C-alpha cells in the first residue's frame, strides 16, 4: 500500500491509518489532507451478519480512474486516492476510503465529497446485506443520483 498507487480495488481488509500515512508521503506541497472512510454498519435492520460487495473487474478500475481524473481537473489538488473493497465484509469493517490533498482545505474537502458522490452511483459496485432473515441487495437511493447535480 505504500507504493503510491492511487486506485486500489481489493478484497483484503485495510488499515485506514496505514493507508492515510502512506498517502501523506505522496502529497508534496499540500497544506491540507482530507480522508473519508466508509464502514459496514452494525445496525442495518438490527441484525446485519455480513455485507457482500460485487463489482465489475476492469470497468471498476476504469470508472474509478475517470472519477479521480475528473476531481484532479476540477479542484486544485496535489494528490487523490480511491480505495474500495469487494467480497465478504463483516460489520464494522472498513469498506472504502478516499483521500485528497490540496494546498488549501476547501479544495480537499470539496474534492473528497465529489469523489464520494460520483463513486456511489458511477462506479460498478453492488452491496448485498446478509441478515438472519436472508440476503438482500441494497437499493440505490434517489438522493445518490440527485447528489451529482450539485457539481
Amino acid at each position, binding site marked *: 500500500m505504500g507504493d503510491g498507487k492511487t486506485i486500489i480495488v481489493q478484497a483484503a481488509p485495510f488499515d485506514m491509518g496505514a493507508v492515510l500515512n502512506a498517502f501523506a508521503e505522496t502529497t508534496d506541497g499540500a497544506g491540507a489532507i482530507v480522508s473519508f472512510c466508509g464502514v459496514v454498519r452494525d445496525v442495518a435492520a438490527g441484525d446485519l451478519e455480513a455485507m457482500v460487495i460485487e463489482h465489475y473487474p476492469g470497468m471498476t478500475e476504469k470508472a474509478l480512474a475517470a472519477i479521480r481524473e475528473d476531481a484532479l481537473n476540477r479542484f486544485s489538488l496535489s494528490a487523490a486516492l480511491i480505495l474500495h473493497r469487494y467480497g465478504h465484509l463483516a460489520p464494522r469493517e472498513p469498506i472504502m476510503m478516499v483521500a485528497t490533498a490540496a494546498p488549501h482545505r476547501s479544495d480537499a474537502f470539496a474534492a473528497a465529497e465529489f469523489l464520494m458522490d460520483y463513486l456511489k*452511483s458511477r462506479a*460498478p459496485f453492488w452491496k448485498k446485506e446478509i441478515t438472519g432473515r436472508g440476503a438482500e441487495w441494497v437499493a*440505490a437511493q434517489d438522493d445518490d443520483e440527485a447528489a451529482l447535480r450539485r457539481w
Partner: protein
Amino acid sequence: MMLELRYFAWLRERLGTEREAVETDAATIGELVAELRAKSDRHAHVFADMSAIRAAVDQELVAMDAAIGGAREVAFFPPMTGG
C-alpha cells in the same frame, strides 16, 4: 455480430448466469433488450422494468438508446451502490 453479455447483482442471480454469448443484429441497447426479452421467460421477467437496469458497452456506462455497433461486451446491472 457476436456479443459477450455480462450480468451483475440481482440480474446475474435471476438469470442464473454471469455471462452469455449472443449473436445479434441489434443496433442499440434498446433493440438488444427487445431480443433478450424474447429469448426466455426468465429474460422477459428480468428485463421487464428497464428503469431498474443500467447498461455498459465495453465497460463504459451508457444510455439505453446507445449504439452497440462494434461492441465486444455489453453488461446489464442494477443502479450502483458503492461507497
